[in-house]
């Protein structure tokens, strides 16, 4: 708890600058809005991030063709993706599925992901905070069968990492998608910059990858996801705050900039405080994860409880303080609101995070 470093190093700032530059070039509100009307496949944007900047390989060890970085560096990428609401499967593939594969020991698939050629998705509902008590997919000698609803970024993934119930409990399998016996059905999503899909298996051929601790692997994957989701959320929140601050400065009503009204400026002041403090919580989570500090469980739960709600608040203030324009399809505020609200529900709600936290710090409900 005392060794935490909550600041950013030079290398991290350089990584941030290159990701920001690339996203600024390739992500526009028009590109993002198109995600709602014409959902596309894996974009050129992702190929740029994955191949040119190597973000897909960040958490993969060097000996497996990766970069061998930690959550501290990945957090910077997540922040920038949040700032741009970029429609890329970084969190789902390069963090959650990657950590699941790492923990299970599937080096072969990791090498493919590191090269940025393919993406993977953990076949678990995106709202899950913990491994399933009983997986809805069954592993039998005849293949995988069962249905998983609301899997994030499954529509573009070519590898599905599937928690499945075997004879002796939870197992972890990989399945190639699309493929025989596997159906992925995209569904209209609250946040189309990270679309969800339903996945159905009907005797799908699979490869079992775990070495007996599938539950531990999934738990680690979800924790890494929660830690880095918090950083994405402060990216969303920061950008919403900045857009709003710019707008209230230049919007004139009653012959004054609306940012001169206390009713407005006090809201901005409060939001600035919140967004800044959320940054400390997210950074602490990333830092404890990177250092394998045992406090990471508490840090992740705190960040999950706090940062998601701050991002939603920032996006809601963004819509409200923009007035009518904030309600339009044309203005990007809605893209941030949808991402923020969806992010708040991802990997467990803030309520679930606080329940988990209560157990960790000895404050039982009853």
């Amino acid at each position, binding site marked *: 708890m005392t060794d935490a470093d909550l*600041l950013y190093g030079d290398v991290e700032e350089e990584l941030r600058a290159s990701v920001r530059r690339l996203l600024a070039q390739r992500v526009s509100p028009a590109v993002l809005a198109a995600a709602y009307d014409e959902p596309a496949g894996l974009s050129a944007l992702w190929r740029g991030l994955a191949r040119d900047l190597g973000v897909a390989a960040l958490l993969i060890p060097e000996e497996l063709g990766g970069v061998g970085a930690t959550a501290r560096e990945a957090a910077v990428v997540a922040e920038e993706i949040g700032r741009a609401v970029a429609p890329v499967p970084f969190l789902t593939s390069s963090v959650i599925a990657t950590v699941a594969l790492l923990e299970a020991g599937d080096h072969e698939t990791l090498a493919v992901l590191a090269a940025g050629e393919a993406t993977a998705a953990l076949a678990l509902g995106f709202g899950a905070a913990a491994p399933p008590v009983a997986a809805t997919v069954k592993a039998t000698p005849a293949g995988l069968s069962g249905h998983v609803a609301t899997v994030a970024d499954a529509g573009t993934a070519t590898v599905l990492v599937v928690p499945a119930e075997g004879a002796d409990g939870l197992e972890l399998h990989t399945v190639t998608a699309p493929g025989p016996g596997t159906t992925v059905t995209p569904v209209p999503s609250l946040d189309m910059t990270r679309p969800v899909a339903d996945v159905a298996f009907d005797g799908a051929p699979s490869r079992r990858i775990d070495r007996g601790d599938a539950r531990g692997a999934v738990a680690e994957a979800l924790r890494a996801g929660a830690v880095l989701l918090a950083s994405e959320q402060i990216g969303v929140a920061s950008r919403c705050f900045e857009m709003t601050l710019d707008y209230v400065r230049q919007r004139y009503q009653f012959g004054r900039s609306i940012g001169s009204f*206390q009713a407005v400026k006090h809201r901005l*002041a409060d939001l600035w405080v919140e967004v800044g*403090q959320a940054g400390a919580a997210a950074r602490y989570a990333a830092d404890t994860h990177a250092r394998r500090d045992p406090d990471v469980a508490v840090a992740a739960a*705190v960040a999950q409880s706090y940062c998601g709600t701050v991002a939603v608040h920032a996006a809601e203030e963004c819509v409200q303080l923009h007035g009518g324009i904030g309600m339009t399809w044309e203005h990007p505020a809605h893209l941030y609101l949808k991402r923020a609200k969806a992010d708040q529900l991802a990997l467990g709600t803030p309520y679930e995070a606080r329940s988990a936290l209560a157990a960790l710090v000895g404050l039982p409900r*009853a």
Partner: protein
Amino acid sequence: MTDDEAISADLALRVERLLDDVDLARIGREDFLGARFDAGLAWVHFPPGCGGLGLPVEFQELVDSRLRAAGAPEHLPGRNGIGRGMAAPTIAAFGTEEQKTRLLRPLWTGEHEYCQLFSEPGAGSDLAAVAARAVRDGDTWVVNGQKVWTSSAHTARRAILVARTDADVPKHRGLTYFICDMTDPGVDVRPLRQITGEAEFNEVFLTDVRIPDADRLGEVGEGWRVATLTLNNERVAIGGGVPREQGMIGKAAQAWRERPELRDPAMHDELMRHWVEAEVARLSAVRMRQRLAAGQPGPEGSAMKLTFARLAQAISGFELELLGADGLRYDDWTARRPESVDYTGRGAGYRYLRAKGNSIEGGTSEILRNVIAERVLGLPAEHRTDKDIPWKDVPR
């Protein structure tokens, strides 16, 4: 050896020499502090002769920790914070050589405890509106007026005072800053009983108080600039260096843990929300210190104070609800005059009531939001109707 290492080695030597020169077992607190002052080890960033050595402030910690380890006498806890924290840097910045030599040593040793005569019934958030008048009479000034919210006025020997010396110019330009002798017969200190029942603060009535011109700090009419320096040194309790579950949340969590019969599942999520917010505030304080240490000072101080006040109020209110019927009891309404204040001391009822002051004292939360919005975020300033007119013509 780098410069820093050379300075550290020299300081360590000076501390050793100071400790060699005194008999720690016998020397009194004031005498030791005097010797420490004379050795330049009171505040190392002050000039030589003023209790310092003209070094960067970072070296103070080395001196403090070594003296602490040696068991040297320290200042009385909770006493003369205004003197050391606010008056001293102001005297060091604006005092003449004569004033620095005369005033700083007794301030440091605790012989002269200081209080602050700034706020008035008509000048709270709008501090530049002070109405206490100082009129020149030869080599002295004659002061009349009323000050309020003065902690330690009943024990202080000196005060820093802002008074109006010119009513015909706009409010910020007609103020002058003085060091006031609290033993002057014209100073009448009356306890100001507050919401908690105790009298932590005072009202101070000034009637024909005579202040020698030698105790004026800064130029006549320069009082606002001098006072601004004082206020910039006003330290805010930000929850310190700080283990988890300090402050109000520690009290609420303790009650939840130790009294299972109080646990209402309907209150659990609120408890955890408070816990999370307190932890996030703690992490923000840690980060603020890391930024300072890395040479990246930021404007987070005002954010910390806003958050501290909000959480102290919310959590102390929650704690009373958690206690239920027990929350109906209050520990003591006696009009006591506490020597120091502990926001989390005493009972839950006291904590709840005292916390109400946290969003008022040292800058209200509303003023702090203005400060953040205008100075940090660069939003346009409030419209001011009193800025360019003589103080005497401002509506009141």
